[in-house]
């Protein structure tokens, strides 16, 4: 019963929560730059506006592919919030990303094709750690099942501190934050217009934005399961940590410039190997 409630709550509330977090993020980011920043509800204004704009379709499949991106992200999130298999959830997350890549490659703009290529490089960069992480959860708690992971005696982070550091890295990729916003950026000017979203206009772009909010809540949910255990106080702790992680991502976004794709791959793989790999090795030895 609780699973049904949390899945329904995720499906309905995630876009709102994501939009609010994004709104707060934009204000915090503006304050860091000495600006006032947009109103708190700006992300919602943006999305409503995009839905009222003219439907400018460059081809007939892009909207469909974007919708698939949204649906698969929502499914991945539902799996996490239903307490199902974490491995499966991460696989569905990757599948969702494939749809976005296909949507971007379906049009003829060289910028979005370039963006799609970069998105694939980003996938290669974050994928190893997500796999190591789920194995880490298995070793730490004896299960891939999110429901079991979050009802342990101790928080999983006690066994997986390295994984958390690594996951912080790949969250920056997934949230499209600098220094890893190679394929498309929330900031105004990028060297290739808007990258992967260049030819998405009006409603198509709005759908992509809603999907991003589902993804944001999903990523923060993954941070939360590092901290959840069977005690009630782990829930407020997890939420506080999620917000703190998001704050750190914004800070990182503001102090770092965009890196080149080689640096992204090398950086992420080195972090994966050092933090994730070492963590896993130690865990295997002590278990």
């Amino acid at each position, binding site marked *: 019963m609780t699973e049904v409630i949390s899945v329904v709550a995720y499906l309905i509330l995630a876009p709102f929560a994501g939009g609010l977090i994004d709104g707060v993020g934009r204000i915090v980011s503006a304050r860091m730059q000495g600006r006032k920043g947009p*109103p708190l509800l700006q992300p919602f204004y943006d999305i409503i506006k995009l839905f009222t704009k003219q439907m400018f379709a460059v081809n007939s499949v892009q909207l469909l592919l974007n919708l698939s991106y949204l649906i698969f992200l929502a499914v991945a999130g539902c799996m996490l919030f239903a307490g199902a298999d974490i491995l499966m959830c991460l696989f569905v997350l990757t599948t969702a990303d494939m749809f976005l890549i296909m949507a971007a490659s379906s049009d003829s703009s060289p910028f979005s094709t370039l963006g799609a290529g970069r998105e694939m490089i980003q996938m290669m960069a974050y994928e190893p750690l997500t796999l190591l992480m789920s194995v880490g959860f298995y070793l730490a708690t004896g299960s891939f099942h999110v429901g079991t992971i979050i009802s342990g005696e101790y928080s999983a982070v006690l066994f997986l501190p390295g994984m958390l550091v690594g996951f912080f890295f790949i969250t920056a990729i997934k949230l499209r934050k600098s220094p890893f916003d190679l394929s498309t950026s929330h900031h105004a000017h990028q060297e290739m217009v808007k990258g992967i979203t260049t*030819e998405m206009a009006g409603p198509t772009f709005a759908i992509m934005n809603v999907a991003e909010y589902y993804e944001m809540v999903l990523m923060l949910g993954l941070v939360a399961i590092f901290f959840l255990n069977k005690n009630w106080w782990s829930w407020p702790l997890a939420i506080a940590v999620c917000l703190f992680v998001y704050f750190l991502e914004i800070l990182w976004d503001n102090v770092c410039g965009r890196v080149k794709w080689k640096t992204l791959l090398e950086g992420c793989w080195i972090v994966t190997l050092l933090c994730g790999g070492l963590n896993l090795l130690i865990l295997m030895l002590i278990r």
Partner: protein
Amino acid sequence: MGKLAKSPWLLHYDGSSCNGCDIEVLACTTPVYDIERFGIINTGDPFQADILLITGGINSQSESVVKQIYSQMPNPKVVVAVGICACTGGIFKTCYNIKGGVDTVIPVDVYVPGCAARPQAIIDGVVQALALLEQKRADYAAQRRGVMQEGGIASGADQ
């Protein structure tokens, strides 16, 4: 304010300006003027822009580019000509390669004079454009409804 007026995204194009006006446009995004407080984003993508800001007059080479950018912007959209060059051709008006102001190639909704136009004036122009944008949105929605109704009648007549 309406739906569009709360989130107008700008696209800035340099027709053939001396870069004086461009620097003033960029100044609008700095902490001193901070246009993001109106929800305005300076995007580089015509597909996602609502307001086209053009600086400088139009020359024979930039003409096709301006026309293309304008056609790539989804409706409803407005054009703001920034600086006296963009309004009329300005100091370059009599040059052999200059066609004149932006309105020689695409319809312009708001003219912001000045050489260079001050950031305050640019923001003021954009805010005026917002009112127009809202009106255009209402017209566009009405037109879309009209088309749908006509379509309905037409398909009814077919049967």
